[in-house]
């Protein structure tokens, strides 16, 4: 109270109203006005008095000036740099608005999360389905390969059968029947020999030999002028891969014989292991 009164008596408030103070001094007066209502009232009283004083010293402007000013102001109006400032004000001063914004943002955030979850699930499903599809493709591909190999196997077989049929009906091919020996009377097989072309074929469809084991193989020999000539080795299988086996070539032979040899064959035949033999009919 005393402080306010003393402050008023310094005369600073009059200088404040007259615009005589520095920015810092103005701030000081404004702080005091907030602190002490009587300072505020004193400032107001000084202002009212100066206002009255100014009004009594009025000089009336020329008649057209007001219209001139209004014209300038109304033509100015569209180009005001105001809206931005006002927008900032609305955001900072209106808590209801910002609460609504926060609410909206929260809602948007929740929506985003929900969409993210949905997307993740959809992606996971798509990934699963893609895996399944890949497996199906692999299975189909394996099937296809199997069929393709079957088809090619059957083609081969068909070719061989046709060849056998051709050989059988072709007089240039000699058919040699090999009959079982003493150690294997049940054994028998068929060799086709094309003398001019020197081709030798073993017919698996008409072979009846005991099955050889893994360490032994049958070896075909041609008897040329009393000497055995190696024509290659083969296996006696239940389901042979080829119906017609091409053997080594020979131009002249009086007989054919098969011995059981160690796998890979021998240089000379083991005579006591001769399974079948047959002479060439002239």
């Amino acid at each position: 109270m005393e402080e306010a009164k003393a402050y008023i008596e310094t005369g600073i408030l009059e200088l404040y109203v007259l615009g005589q103070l520095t920015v810092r001094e103005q701030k000081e007066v404004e702080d005091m006005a907030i602190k002490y209502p009587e300072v505020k009232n004193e400032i107001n009283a000084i202002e009212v008095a100066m206002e009255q004083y100014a009004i009594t010293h009025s000089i009336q402007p020329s008649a057209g000036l007001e219209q001139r000013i209004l014209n300038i102001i109304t033509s100015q109006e569209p180009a005001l740099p105001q809206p931005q400032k006002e927008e900032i004000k609305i955001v900072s001063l209106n808590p209801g608005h910002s609460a609504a914004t926060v609410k909206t943002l929260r809602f948007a955030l929740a929506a985003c999360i929900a969409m993210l979850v949905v997307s993740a699930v959809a992606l996971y499903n798509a990934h699963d389905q893609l895996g399944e599809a890949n497996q199906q493709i692999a299975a189909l591909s394996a099937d296809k390969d199997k069929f393709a190999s079957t088809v090619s196997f059957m083609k081969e077989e068909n070719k061989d059968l046709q060849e056998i049929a051709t050989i059988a009906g072709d007089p240039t091919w000699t058919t040699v029947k090999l009959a079982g020996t003493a150690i294997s009377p049940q054994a028998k097989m068929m060799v086709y020999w094309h003398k001019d072309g020197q081709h030798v074929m073993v017919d698996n469809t008409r072979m009846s030999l005991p099955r050889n084991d893994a360490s032994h193989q049958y070896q075909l020999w041609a008897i040329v002028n009393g000497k055995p000539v190696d024509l290659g080795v083969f296996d006696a299988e239940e389901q042979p891969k080829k119906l017609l086996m091409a053997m080594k070539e020979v131009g002249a032979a009086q007989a054919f014989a098969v011995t059981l040899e160690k796998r890979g064959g021998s240089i000379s035949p083991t005579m006591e292991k001769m399974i079948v033999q047959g002479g060439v009919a002239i």
Partner: protein
Amino acid sequence: MLHNLYISKQLAATKKISLTEEDLVRALKGKETIAIQALYDMYSGALLGVISRIITQQEVAEDLLQETFIKIWNSGDSYDSSKGRLFTWMINVARNLSIDKLRSKDFRNSNKNQDIENNVDFIDSQKKVTFNADTLGLKEMVTALKPELNDVLNMVYFKGYTHVEAAEELNLPLGTVKTRIRMAIMELRKHFN
């Protein structure tokens, strides 16, 4: 708000527009032209009174009054009612624009020319302003205010002097000038209340 303003304008169609301080501030900040119309009707004379005592040529003074109103219109947002009355802010705008003009190069040059061409008239016009208080029918009040108080107050309030400049001009201590300003205003307050 706007509607009410228009009604009050219609009621006052033949008279001057007059609004409460609160309505004026709201209309000014809301960029309603009625605010400028009202402020013009209420205060244009008082503002021109202040401007004319700093810039004596009537034409230039009226240009400054126009400039003052446009600045008031454009910077209405920067007026803070907690710091003082609207008129105090307006008169500060008018006074600052006038002092800036007085100190501007182009104005000083044109004044110099006037000095040379029309010296006598210029001095007369200066004198006219000095004694204007009498011609405006303020005898009663001027006599109520002692001359030494009147001089100091008018220099600061009307002529754009700072109180420091007034002290130098009148060859008085700064404290005396401050005291005289305060006493002058206290006299005015007695007079107007």
